[in-house]
């Protein structure tokens, strides 16, 4: 089978990308960009003048060769033919991120804020480039058709997501896991084991086959499709049962991906709270990422917290597989095929999770940023810009409010800040952040303290580069994910699996929301 399609499509995609670059770089788009910026600074200026140039050249050159060249069956033909579909997804991601999502935001802002939320419609509905990219993918696959020349490349989307998850490890450090790890383990342990147990119990009450209940429990409890695939041989699930489970997870996950950010905005959840909730309550790794990015499209703090919870959940998988194996063997007396649980775990455990841990280990050594970096940023009060040293006016403002501070440690840290006109140490920085959160001082003083905090926090260039890579890998993967969500796959969720999955999913989402709101503070 020859995969390369002799079509001008990839060449045209390359020309469109180069046209975007040229019009942006030459200033021809400046009027439209000003309109999209709506009085603020347009966030994607640097991307617009670099990314479409590089990828446009590659796409145009490869496109000419695919269009006019001769192609023979083989590895080169198979792998090079994926470029067309990959560039197709990338072009959609570019258009949505740079133009369509900002345009929707402009329209939404012109409609004013919604009720008492103080937020615009697009913020509440999470209508950003991530959600719109997925929706565009769903529309293309269900209302049109993925063009033949793109079908092979669209299958790269999951590779993009997995690569993004591995690289996410570069943004974590031991300092962060020390704060988040314990809570995520307790929460995930409780909710994963609870979900699996609930599905198995409901499955018995509703008389669905043990194999169906087993595979559904893994999917609903752990991490969606990967867990389903891992648990299937243990409970000897039939392919239709795997399909039903994946369909249930998909339809539930898609719903969560859109509903979670809306609820999060309505409740005014912090990034950490929302990340913990999404990482616990949403089933599929990709959908966790989708919801987290939808909640905070231009930052990565929510995604990082959500992924910590998500990764913790994936790490529970071997325990669940062992549990299901024992459970299934006990219930199926007529079982004939012996299942080697250890082999199943070894064969099915997702290696990309180990890649994430490897990147985390590298990050912890300090090769990407100082080892004590927190959220990709690190403390250094020796390289503060002159304009960020506190002015006489700011010092006077802080002195006027200093009497309101009661705690001795906060008083001392504030005194050192006033004296040195910059945050004196990393401990003082933490103390002063606590002072801001306590809202003891006036808004003006808190604003000064926040400024002083930002002045001593620096983002490592390498970490920033990793963030950009991760953002694009996820954007790419999620547009492709949308192209794999067909109406047919959603219909597969019908019947008992959907009912059981819906009950368990809803209980997990509500209970985890309650726990997060009660236990997770703004900064943990």
């Amino acid at each position: 089978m020859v995969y390369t399609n002799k079509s001008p499509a990839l060449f045209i995609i390359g020309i469109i990308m180069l046209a975007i670059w040229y019009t942006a770089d030459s200033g021809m788009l400046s009027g439209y960009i000003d309109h999209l910026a709506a009085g603020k600074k347009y966030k994607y200026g640097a991307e617009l003048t670099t990314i479409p140039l590089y990828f446009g050249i590659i796409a145009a050159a490869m496109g000419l060769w695919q269009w006019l060249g001769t192609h023979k069956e083989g590895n080169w033909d198979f792998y090079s033919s994926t470029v067309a579909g990959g560039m197709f997804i990338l072009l959609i991601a570019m258009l949505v991120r740079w133009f369509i999502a900002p345009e929707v935001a402009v329209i939404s802002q012109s409609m004013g804020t919604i009720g008492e939320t103080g937020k615009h419609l697009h913020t509440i509905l999470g209508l950003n480039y991530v959600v719109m990219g997925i929706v565009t993918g769903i529309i293309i696959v269900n209302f049109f058709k993925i063009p033949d020349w793109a079908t092979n490349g669209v299958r790269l989307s999951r590779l993009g997501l997995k690569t993004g998850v591995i690289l996410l490890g570069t943004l974590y450090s031991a300092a962060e896991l020390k704060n988040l790890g314990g809570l995520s383990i307790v929460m995930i342990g409780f909710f994963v084991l609870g979900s699996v147990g609930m599905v198995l119990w409901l499955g018995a009450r509703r008389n669905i086959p043990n194999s169906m209940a087993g595979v559904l429990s893994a999917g609903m409890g752990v991490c969606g499709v990967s867990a389903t695939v891992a648990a299937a041989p243990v409970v000897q699930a039939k392919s239709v049962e795997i399909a039903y489970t994946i369909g249930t997870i998909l339809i539930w996950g898609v719903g969560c991906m859109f509903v979670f950010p809306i609820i999060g905005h309505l409740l005014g959840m912090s990034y950490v709270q929302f990340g913990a909730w999404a990482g616990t309550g949403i089933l599929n790794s990709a959908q966790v990422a989708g919801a987290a990015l939808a909640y905070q499209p231009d930052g990565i703090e929510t995604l990082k917290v959500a992924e910590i919870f998500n990764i913790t959940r994936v790490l529970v998988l071997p325990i669940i597989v062992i549990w299901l194996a024992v459970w299934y063997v006990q219930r199926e007396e007529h079982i004939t095929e012996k299942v080697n649980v250890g082999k199943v775990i070894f064969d099915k455990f997702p290696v990309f999770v180990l890649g994430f841990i490897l990147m985390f280990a590298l990050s912890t050594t300090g090769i990407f940023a100082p080892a004590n970096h927190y959220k990709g940023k690190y403390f250094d009060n020796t390289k503060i810009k002159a304009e960020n040293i506190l002015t006489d006016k700011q010092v006077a403002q802080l002195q006027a409010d200093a009497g309101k501070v009661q705690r001795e440690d906060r008083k001392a840290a504030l005194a050192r800040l006033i004296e040195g006109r910059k945050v004196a140490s990393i401990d003082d920085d933490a103390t002063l952040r606590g002072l801001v959160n306590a809202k003891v001082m006036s808004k003006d003083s808190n604003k000064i303290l926040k400024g002083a905090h930002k002045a001593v926090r620096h983002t490592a260039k390498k970490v920033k580069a990793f963030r950009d890579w991760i953002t694009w890998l996820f954007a790419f993967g999620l547009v492709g994910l949308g192209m794999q969500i067909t109406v047919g796959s959603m219909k597969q969720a019908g019947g008992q699996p959907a009912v059981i999955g819906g009950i368990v999913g809803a209980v997990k989402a509500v209970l985890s929301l309650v726990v997060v709101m009660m236990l997770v503070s703004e900064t943990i």
Partner: protein
Amino acid sequence: MSENKFDRGSALSIFGSDRREDFMALVFALAITVFVYFSY
């Protein structure tokens, strides 16, 4: 994308198995890491 019309890989991936896709993701991630490490 629901049925597999390819003679290589699956409906959702160009790779024949999840394990192979995981390893390729690892290779790409390491390549990006090396690039970022020496470029920034």
